[in-house]
């Protein structure tokens, strides 16, 4: 009669102390320990948190009203913000000298280094506003110290109506980082669920879902959007229109994910661990979400990060059809849309680069964050 306790003790003696720590660490702690190792992911997390903070406090951070126009400064180039003046800390920008050229129909600007315009932090706002929609505020994070006519501070330049691109990008983050991403998640949920059902159950359900996906996929998007554009009542507020269209876009967007998920499920559904879960009495949906989805999470993350920029940009196509965002609401897509002309490309590239950079940074950050999360969630240690 063998005593159970006399089984060879699988101690962790051969491991050093740290590893022993690791071996017994809780799942979440383990996750965090691993995630911390991924420096870029960590930095990305910081960037993303920062971006969302910017979006939340846009009113405070943006020095100007994103829709405030200024005829004097149409297409004003970016004014470099310098911190030092004559050896002391005195943030300032150079004043822009403007000449109106009626022949070429434009204003021409020359920075005048002899006329610094002082910039300081926590300046009074031109208009009181509500931070986060309810905190009454009178102060902006930074701005002109005492604005005189002719002074300006366009750190990322101005657009065709003399609006401050920096403020517009900051405000644009609100939409682009919120509603803009809703569609991605709807696509995700639909794609995984429907694709999962299709692949998991197979048979007639699979056949029907596959034909349906084929049908959806085979309709080109432009006519579809045009059809919807016509069907949406003109009286709807623009945000609702945009939201509904985002929904519709994502209702179509799930199909490719669904096909991939299905393929995966087809090959996984007969794995023993799935059978084991079924024997444990787990429901089919439970199996899909508890066992199958986690096993190709990296694919999902890759798909997601690829889908995000397309979602943010979807509205550039939509606004052409009159169902995108309408002024005065701004988003990064709107800003890029406005940069889509030869004038901006040739003579005001900052209109293009500023929003594009914002999108690239956020997408890269989301991507690397995704990578980091995936690696951290991956039980298989990868090379560090």
């Amino acid at each position, binding site marked *: *009669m*063998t005593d*159970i306790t*006399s*089984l*060879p*003790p*699988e*101690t*962790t003696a*051969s*491991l*050093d*102390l*740290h*590893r022993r*720590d*690791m*071996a*017994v*660490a*809780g*799942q979440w702690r*383990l996750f965090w*320990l*691993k995630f911390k*190792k991924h420096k870029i992911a960590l930095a990305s997390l910081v960037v993303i948190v920062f971006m969302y903070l910017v979006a939340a406090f846009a009113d405070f951070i943006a020095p100007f009203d994103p829709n405030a126009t200024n005829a004097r400064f149409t297409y004003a180039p970016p004014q470099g913000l310098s911190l030092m003046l004559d050896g002391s800390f005195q943030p300032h920008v150079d004043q822009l000298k403007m000449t109106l050229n009626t022949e070429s129909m434009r204003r021409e600007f020359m920075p005048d280094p002899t006329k610094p315009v002082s910039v300081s932090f926590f300046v009074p706002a031109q208009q009181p506003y509500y931070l986060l929609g309810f905190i009454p505020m009178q102060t902006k994070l930074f701005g002109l110290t005492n604005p005189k006519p002719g002074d300006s501070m366009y750190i990322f330049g101005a657009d065709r109506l003399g609006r401050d691109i920096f403020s517009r990008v900051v405000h644009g983050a609100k939409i682009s980082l919120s509603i803009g991403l809703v569609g991605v998640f709807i696509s995700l949920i639909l794609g995984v669920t429907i694709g999962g059902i299709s692949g998991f159950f197979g048979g007639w359900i699979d056949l029907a879902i596959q034909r349906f996906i084929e049908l959806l996929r085979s309709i080109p998007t432009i006519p579809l959007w045009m059809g919807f554009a016509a069907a949406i009542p003109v009286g709807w507020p623009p945000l609702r229109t945009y939201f509904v269209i985002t929904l519709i876009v994502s209702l179509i967007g799930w199909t490719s994910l669904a096909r991939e998920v299905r393929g995966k499920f087809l090959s996984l559904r007969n*794995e*023993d*661990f799935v*059978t*084991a*879960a*079924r*024997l*444990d*009495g*787990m429901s089919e949906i439970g199996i899909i979400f*508890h*066992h199958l989805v*986690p*096993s190709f*999470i990296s694919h999902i993350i890759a798909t997601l990060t690829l889908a995000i920029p397309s979602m943010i940009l979807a509205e550039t196509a939509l606004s052409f059809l009159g169902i995108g965002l309408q002024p005065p609401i701004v988003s990064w897509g709107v800003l890029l849309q406005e940069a889509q002309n030869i004038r901006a490309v040739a003579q005001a590239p900052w209109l293009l680069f500023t929003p594009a950079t914002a999108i690239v940074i956020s997408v890269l950050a989301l991507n690397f964050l995704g990578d980091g999360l995936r690696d951290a*969630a991956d*039980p*298989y*240690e990868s*090379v*560090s």
Partner: protein
Amino acid sequence: MSTTSDTILEVKDLKTLFPTRTGIFKAVDGVSFELKRGKTLCVVGESGSGKSVTARSILQIVDRPGRIEGGSVLLTRADGSTTDLAKLDPRGREIRSVRGKEIAMIFQEPMSSLSPVHRIGTQIGEALRIHFGTPKHEQRERVLELLRQVEIPRPETAIDRYTFEFSGGMRQRVMIAMALACNPSVLIADEPTTALDVTTQAEILDLIKKLQQSHGMAVLFITHDMGVVAEIADEVLVMYRGKVMERGSVEQIFHTPQDAYTRRLIDSVVRLEKKAEVRLSRPAIPTGTPPLLDVRNLSLTFASGLKAVDDVSLIVRPGETLGIVGESGSGKTTMGRCLLRIYDAQSGAIDYRRPDGHTVDIRTADKAALVKIRSEVRMIFQDPVGSLSPRKTVGQIIAEPLKIAGMKGRELNDRVADLMQHVGLEPAWRERYPHAFSGGQRQRIGIARAIALNPRLIIADEATSALDVSLRSQMLDLMMKLQDELGLSYVFISHDMSVIRYMCDRVAVMYRGKIVEVGETDQVVNDPAHGYTRALLSAIPHPDPHNRRIHNRFRYDAGRTVSANG
């Protein structure tokens, strides 16, 4: 010939490390041994002791981030030139010309070690192309010959097939063929016969022996099966936790083991040769008790037309262990799966007696009933890797059935810890993922999951195949202890006759989907009635180097009994 010129491969103080995030893990820690021309060195040892890593280190194909930290691997060629393999650039031309040509390797996992999208023939012939630039048709000739040698049926068609069309045993034989393609002077075989039934295993062992004799090939043979060791080994190396515990001739290891671990190993072997002690003291099950499970005329035909289960009838009584033995591919797993409706049998009845005395036919039961039955009848899967969700921690895996049964919070935690302790796993490891366990530990996780709900019947499919002998005997003891405590019944599927003998009250022998013989274990083992059973018994390697009897085996071929050597 002098001793030194006999030595082909000399491994000295080999150290292989795995740097992990949290520190250095020494998988191989100062291993030394020599391989002699025409001789076989068997490596045994606890699972996870570094046998495979040692083998891989020789060819410098340790998975990243593992690296060889020290020691030398001296290869001495027939012309007397020597090379230290451990010093070569792992991606360089030199080591490449050794791999596959001079030293070939058979990998442990036959299922996944073959490419799923290349034809069998291409994969085998590849080494010939790389090393000799053999033209296509010659390659084909050679591959066909190899396939014939490893007993793949109908090699002409098999050569153009894909991996997934092969059963586990066939894949393993393909791996062997691949390794033998270039007539290597050293063969490293990492558990090359685990998926093979004893009869086929014997053929393969014979083949290797023949090649050894004709080419003077040296063999490094890693195995858990002490019977095999006794049959083929010239020398034995015992490993434990990355270190060599003991090295010596096969007789010495079996008859005068020095090291404590070796002794435990040999003890277990001996113990497994007999009926378990626990069972000796058990009262016999009264013959009149109504069966727990009554299977009648069960049949299942796969879509491919293969009749995997053919009119099978069985009875399992409460508290009884029924062993199922049979050749690989005879339908054991399939039949076990039918019992739990993982596969839908086409005909027959599976009457299961519920605790309240009612009988339910599992084959036709509705969903709700099935869920209840499945909490009483549990399964241990043949493949411990595949049956554990790779992204769930062990704690979660074991807790899953409990959670579904409604257990929560502290109670759940305690129960999981309790179960882990039961199967000899440290409860502190509950947050680890399955891949961080060795093959044997994984099998124990499967067992813990199966017993979590206090079941009444467990269908155990090769539940101990990945364990080394000492662990195996302890696991079997545990299972029998649970049987005593809970009044459990087992359907115990196995290749291994010694396990059956140790564990089972009665045995059913399956052959090509049919039950060809059922009876009390002692009776079947000692006085087999069916030809196949006899053939099976004759091919069992005997764990005694003095008494190598595998050569006296014979084969059963659809009613004909032929001597293997005849």
